[in-house]
């Protein structure tokens, strides 16, 4: 391989990035050293196994990645704003949409989702941690260092440029030599292994760690959505791992899985990657559905409508989504019967999804709707997702898809479900649970500004793209109108779309501002129950103590906290005499971080085909695994006195034992 260009050169923008990366890193290092924060960072964050802290780290990284992916998006939109633009060269544009797609889905949506899993699920099911706290830390660090591996490709070695799902044979050595494609493989491989482990972790957490009195049928819908999503993760991430391994074998060992030569079959790549890729988009949208279920019930002051069919439809979506992957390549021509079967399976997904929408509507019906920030995002979600879903159903009609495929119609569809569904959903979740995790309510005024600029920006950006699709504009074009004198009239709509992208960017800036502002000046939440909530997480102080629940809560049915509050109000609530018992907690450990670092080293080595380094990294991984296996002193007990001390301190803050308003 040609490693002569270790540092990416030649583009002023990249030099700019180099300089700013160095400056920011220096600033961080100086800050940490000056304020003597290294020890704090190591003890409190890097070695932590506390699900809440891990959740916070996921949240921060995903917001960072939203920024990175968003900057990519804005660069693309600038390039496309006018025809025949020379802002970005072809290869550079290709790198940017590849990293945009990869980062947005794998390093923005996935960690945002895991942030919510971690911050909410144990609290909602009355557990003191996830089933495997150590593994949870491993998952986070694998994700984080995997993401960093892909991100450094921007300045070292060159970025991948074969599209976010890197179709073979374009992604093979013959057409994409150099480290870029390897960065893609190893970055998402490493973080994908982390995702798989998170899936196992949360399935077991939900099945086994609920407070003993909580039956599955009492479980809040967000936790159900996490279960459904995790089941889908378990079903497809192994395929992802294997498929990436195959491409690695092709590129590193000269194999012929997907090459044009040697009997390889590039179509097999397309087939396998979508077996993962399609369920992946439902993996990210299911938890958003869960978030909305919580929000709608809370802010309509009403029980969720049709709980049983809500649960059923989520499980149905996660299973049926396994049977639709061919809709991404109807045009490959696997056969009319194949297309028909998968077209119909795809449309079937619309049915349970629709049921969820109707149940949300009827949760609000005869309720009392409070329009708070989380609810605002829900109300933006409904029309947006309905339209995006409907265009999905249009795509699912196979012969019609022959006309939409790979056009801007498709781009508009998936941004509408990804932004309207996933991003709005997770942002709603962030607004909803922010007071729980940080004890701070986010500023309303700035929130409104952010909301409206996002909304307007979204429609201005993506509605024109449907039209562009009908005008025959295909995706992944770095320029248009430059050849042969075809002027298809794409220019005006592209310009509008770019304006929309900028508006969304402004919306994002408002959000960052909102968070920073609120941390400084925001309203503190001392009640622990910022929204008059219904589920267990609102029954404990905000932010919760390390062990979450001093005493495991007793649950008598759905919406446990809501009914407990009512009993408390009526005065019929029998408060049992508190008798604390020592609480069993896992110890912090540096091994997860070290293991992920070894993975990073291995990934970096293999990316540059420096075998010594790759193998050294892998050996490091095994050493950390063994070190863990020999560790017996992995947990401790929190003494009763300490629990009493903590609880008293928190109670004096005036939280849990207040009566409901």
């Amino acid at each position: 391989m040609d490693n002569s260009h270790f540092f990416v050169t030649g583009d002023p923008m990249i030099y700019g990035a180099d300089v700013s990366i160095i400056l920011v890193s220096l600033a961080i290092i100086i800050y940490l050293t000056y304020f003597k924060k290294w020890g704090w960072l190591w003890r409190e964050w890097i070695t932590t196994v506390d699900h809440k802290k891990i959740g916070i780290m996921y949240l921060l990284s995903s917001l960072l990645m939203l920024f990175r992916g968003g900057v990519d998006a804005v660069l693309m939109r600038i390039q496309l704003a006018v025809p025949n633009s020379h802002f970005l060269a072809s290869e550079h544009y290709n790198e940017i949409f590849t990293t945009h797609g990869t980062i947005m889905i794998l390093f923005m949506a996935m960690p945002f989702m895991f942030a919510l899993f971690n911050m909410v699920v144990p609290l909602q099911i009355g557990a003191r941690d996830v089933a495997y706290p150590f593994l949870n830390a491993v998952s986070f660090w694998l994700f984080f260092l995997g993401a960093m591996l892909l991100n450094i490709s921007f300045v070292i070695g060159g970025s991948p440029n074969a599209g976010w799902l890197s179709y073979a044979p374009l992604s093979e050595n013959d057409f994409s030599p150099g480290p870029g494609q390897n960065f893609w493989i190893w970055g998402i491989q490493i973080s994908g292994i982390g995702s798989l482990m998170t899936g196992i972790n949360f399935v077991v957490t939900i099945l086994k760690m609920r407070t003993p009195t909580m039956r599955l049928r009492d479980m809040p819908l967000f936790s159900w959505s996490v279960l459904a999503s995790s089941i889908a993760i378990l079903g497809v991430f192994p395929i992802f791992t294997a498929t990436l391994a195959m491409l690695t074998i092709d590129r590193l060992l000269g194999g012929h899985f997907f090459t044009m030569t040697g009997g390889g079959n590039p179509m097999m790549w397309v087939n396998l990657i979508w077996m993962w890729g399609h369920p992946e988009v439902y993996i990210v949208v299911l938890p958003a559905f869960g978030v909305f279920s919580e929000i709608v019930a809370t802010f309509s002051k009403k029980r969720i409508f049709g709980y049983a069919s809500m649960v059923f439809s989520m499980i149905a979506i996660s299973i049926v989504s396994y049977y639709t992957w061919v809709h991404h390549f109807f045009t490959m021509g696997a056969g009319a019967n194949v297309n028909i079967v998968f077209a119909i399976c795809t449309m079937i997904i619309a049915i349970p999804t629709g049921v969820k929408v109707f149940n949300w509507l009827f949760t609000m019906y005869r309720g009392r709707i409070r329009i708070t920030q989380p609810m605002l995002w829900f109300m933006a979600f409904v029309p947006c997702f309905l339209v995006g879903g409907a265009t999905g159903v249009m795509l699912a009609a196979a012969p019609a898809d022959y006309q939409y495929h790979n056009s801007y119609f498709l781009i508009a569809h998936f941004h509408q479900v990804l932004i309207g569904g996933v991003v709005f959903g997770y942002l709603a979740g962030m607004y909803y649970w922010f007071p729980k995790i940080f004890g701070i309510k986010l500023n309303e005024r700035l929130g409104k500004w952010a909301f409206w600029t996002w909304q307007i920006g979204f429609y201005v950006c993506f509605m024109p793209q449907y039209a562009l699709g009908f005008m025959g504009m295909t995706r992944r074009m770095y320029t248009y109108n430059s050849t042969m004198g075809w002027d298809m009239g794409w220019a005006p709509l592209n310009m509008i779309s770019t304006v929309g992208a900028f508006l969304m960017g402004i919306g994002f800036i408002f959000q960052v501002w909102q968070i920073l502002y609120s941390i400084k000046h925001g309203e503190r939440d001392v009640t622990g129950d910022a929204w008059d909530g219904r589920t267990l997480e609102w029954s404990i102080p905000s932010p919760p103590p390390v062990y979450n629940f001093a005493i495991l809560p007793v649950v008598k049915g759905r919406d446990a906290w809501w009914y407990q509050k009512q009993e408390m109000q009526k005065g019929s609530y029998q408060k049992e005499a508190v008798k604390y018992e020592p609480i069993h907690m896992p110890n912090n450990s540096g091994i997860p971080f070290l293991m992920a670092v070894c993975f990073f080293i291995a990934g970096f080595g293999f990316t540059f085909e420096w075998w010594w380094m790759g193998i050294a990294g892998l050996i490091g991984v095994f050493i950390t695994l063994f070190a863990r296996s020999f560790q017996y002193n992995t947990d401790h007990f929190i003494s009763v006195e300490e629990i009493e001390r903590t609880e008293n301190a928190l109670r004096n803050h005036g939280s849990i034992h207040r009566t409901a308003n």
Partner: protein
Amino acid sequence: MQTAKLSLLAFLGTALLSGCDRSKFIVLDPRGPVGKQEYNLIILSVILCAIIIIPVIGIFTYIVLKYRDKPNNKAPYQPEWDDNKFLEIIWWGIPIIIVAILGVFTAKTTMNLTKPPVKDVDPIVVQVTSLDWKWMFTYPDKKIATVNYAEIPAGVPVQFILTSDAPMNSFWVPQLGGQEYTMPGMSMGLWLQADKVGEYFGSGANFTGKGFAHMQFRVKAVKQEEFNKWAKQVQKDSPVLTKAGYKKLSKPSLEKELSFSSYPIGLFEDIVNKNGGIYYDHMNHMGDHTTMSDMNMKK
């Protein structure tokens, strides 16, 4: 609700700004039977989706307006009401019906498109090879080849046979019909037909790297006599595409429109086979050694 209105506004605005010129929306302006069938399905799916999506957005707006948490709101408030079998049956039922209807039409259209668009006219074969970053067309009957443009007779079904000697691409002429992938080692059939004389925009739709954005081509539909005349002309005037010439052509580059009076015998088959074609029974003849009549029989 505001967002719903907003989306409508944005949509209308979009339509206005683009000048309401339907001819720009080439997908919605098909000029051949294949494109028309697909257009019909598009319209059907829009209607079916609209039937359900628009009322739902309406209901949503109504509910949000009616059940606001305001002190003097007289609307009923039933915090414990969470189940109604009748309603649930309705909203499982309606989508099922819609999906069933759309499913039937989808299946029908899918099957229809596997057959030649008209039965009474003998089809012609055009072989298509996507290269980095250009399109090569070979005409097995006329033994001529072109690059980045294709001429076809209007009113005659054309069996395009697709392959690739580069990363997979997709062959798309929106006004004639939908696209299909061109894949190394495969020879896939695609029926298209132009009803009227005219020039149609075509492009590669599946990303193939650096020069991908420039892979646009022209499909020119002319009267049958003119088509024959054109072929004769090319046979007479144009240079020959030799093996070496093809080798050079297949290297990554951008090209203008080119014509060749002949090409090496079996070129297309060789391309398919060398990229793995030997491992598939090709259901679609590659167009070199068959007559049209047994192609019709197969379909």
